[in-house]
């Protein structure tokens, strides 16, 4: 006697449709992607139309000539306690901070350019002073990174007639409200054995060419204590 097969199980109730929005799954991503694309295209065009004029020198594969600094006429003299001195033109600069062995100059021609000179005793290694300055600035500047733009390359880094470590950096000023101004920063350091000095030139990227020239005009006047006696 065979056992009758069990009756087939009752079919499960069909699943009820669950609540969904207006958009199909693919459309949600599509809408966000399309919206983002439109905004980015507009932003791309806006950035291109506002971009600074390309002023590339014809020296991509070779060393550019160094920029020439304007001649200093009727300069203002600043002397540090350690015996160093520097001159700057009041026509272009004003001193916004003067310490015993530090000087901060601001461009008075409407360009956002600052030059800061800080000196310490000669037993400080220029490389260490340079590294400290770079570290301090990198904590203030978003994404600060060394660059080698040919037209602004620091071909012979140093301060005054002394050679030492030097480099050019780019980055962006940041704040809790958001990143804002792209900047160019040059840092150089040197020593004569009696005094070690570090110089930083900070400027908006679009003013960096001007800043390099003006900064160079100041650094050319820098005299170490051993040179001021001559």
């Amino acid at each position, binding site marked *: 006697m065979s056992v009758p097969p069990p009756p087939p199980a009752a079919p499960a109730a069909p699943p009820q449709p669950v609540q*969904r929005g207006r958009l199909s*799954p693919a459309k949600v991503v599509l809408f966000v992607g399309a919206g983002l694309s439109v905004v980015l295209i507009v932003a791309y065009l806006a950035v291109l139309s506002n971009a600074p004029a390309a002023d590339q020198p014809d020296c991509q594969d070779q060393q550019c000539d160094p920029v020439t600094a304007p001649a200093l006429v009727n300069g203002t003299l600043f002397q540090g306690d350690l015996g160093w001195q520097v001159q700057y033109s009041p026509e272009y600069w004003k001193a916004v901070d003067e310490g015993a062995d530090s000087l901060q100059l601001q461009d008075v021609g409407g360009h956002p350019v600052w030059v800061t000179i800080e000196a310490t005793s000669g037993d400080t290694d220029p490389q260490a002073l340079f590294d400290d300055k770079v570290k301090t600035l990198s904590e203030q500047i978003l994404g600060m990174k060394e660059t080698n733009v040919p037209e602004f390359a620091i071909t012979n880094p140093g301060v005054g007639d002394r050679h030492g470590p030097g480099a050019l950096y780019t980055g962006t000023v940041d704040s809790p409200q958001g990143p804002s101004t792209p900047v160019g920063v040059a840092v150089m350091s040197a020593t004569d054995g009696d005094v070690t000095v570090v110089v930083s030139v900070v400027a908006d990227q679009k003013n960096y060419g001007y800043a390099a020239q003006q900064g160079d005009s100041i650094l050319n006047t820098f005299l170490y204590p051993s040179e001021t006696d001559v």
Partner: protein
Amino acid sequence: MTCPNCGNEVPEGTYCVVCGIRFSEGGGAGAKRGYSAAPNQSVLRPAPLTTLFPQLPPAEMTNFYAALAVGTIVMVVLALFGLFPLAIVAAAVLVPLITVVYVYDIDVYEDEPIRVIGLTMLAGAIAGAIVGVLGRVWVPSGTISLIDQGSSAGLIRSIVLPTIALLLALVGPALLLRYERFNDVLDGVTFGVAAAVCCAGAQLLVQAGPLFSAGLRPGGDVLDWIVRLLSAGIATPLLFAGAIGAAGGVLWLRYRAPVRDRHILGPLGNPIVAVVLAAVVLVLGAAALEYLNQWLSLVAMIVLDVIALITLRAIIHLGLMQEAAERAIGPDVTCPNCGQQTPHHTFCSNCGYSFAALPKTGAGSSEMRRT
């Protein structure tokens, strides 16, 4: 059976249809409560989407996470190519854009979408733009901020500006507080979140103005930028949304909830206390960005995000619970979330989904939500 949590006589089921508590197998002790807008999640789980978009159906959640992921990838790829100005734009619009798609997809206020949500978001964007302008003109901004490190500048950037952003972002939602048709705590949260993300985005765009005139590749370290973009494009809008959305929810709970529910949050339900706490959260976020390095500030922002999101979830949860008050249990209906039959009240007895969190689209959902 008698619910061990709310004490009401309720039908048997996995969840109480009145208070949304999940019954343990014994039905009494050990009952476990899920987040009312997403019963499969804890109130203490800082899930961004179920918190910022509580009316988003669970079936839609994956799509919105995918959209957020795609936007984040776009932002990171732009940064990898050094296109920082474009990456900043992506960071500024990503979360507001997802909010717009959410509002459209769910049709939160289908009768007057432009007037209600559109103007709320516009008000938030204007608030952010004002703060962005203040951030550029009020304190040393641009290159000078590297030189002029006055002590007041940091305090203004980390205390004053975030507080102004909070107050201005609440103006739009506060204007809607007087309309009786927007009487749910969820309304306050939705308005607060919508205004907040637009405020954060607009502030970022205005502050970043000088970046847009420096060419497509202004130069800089890519990794630093990626960390900053995650902070500006994801962590900051989440913080704004959590803090301002919570303040909006408290405003609604105090002025729109039934009188007996207005003190459900205790002293934290006082609007002034809520606004002050929201300001503290935003100030801590700004201070982290002002004084910590990129990585530490991102970690701090994530911690603050977690706190703000959990607070917002608690307010949404209480708001949805509050709406269950004194409502008779109705006949069986089909749950729009799980598709099962459930006695009609505030929560599905099978999946625990809150009908108050339903979007207004879909057959019968509006009636189910409001009755």
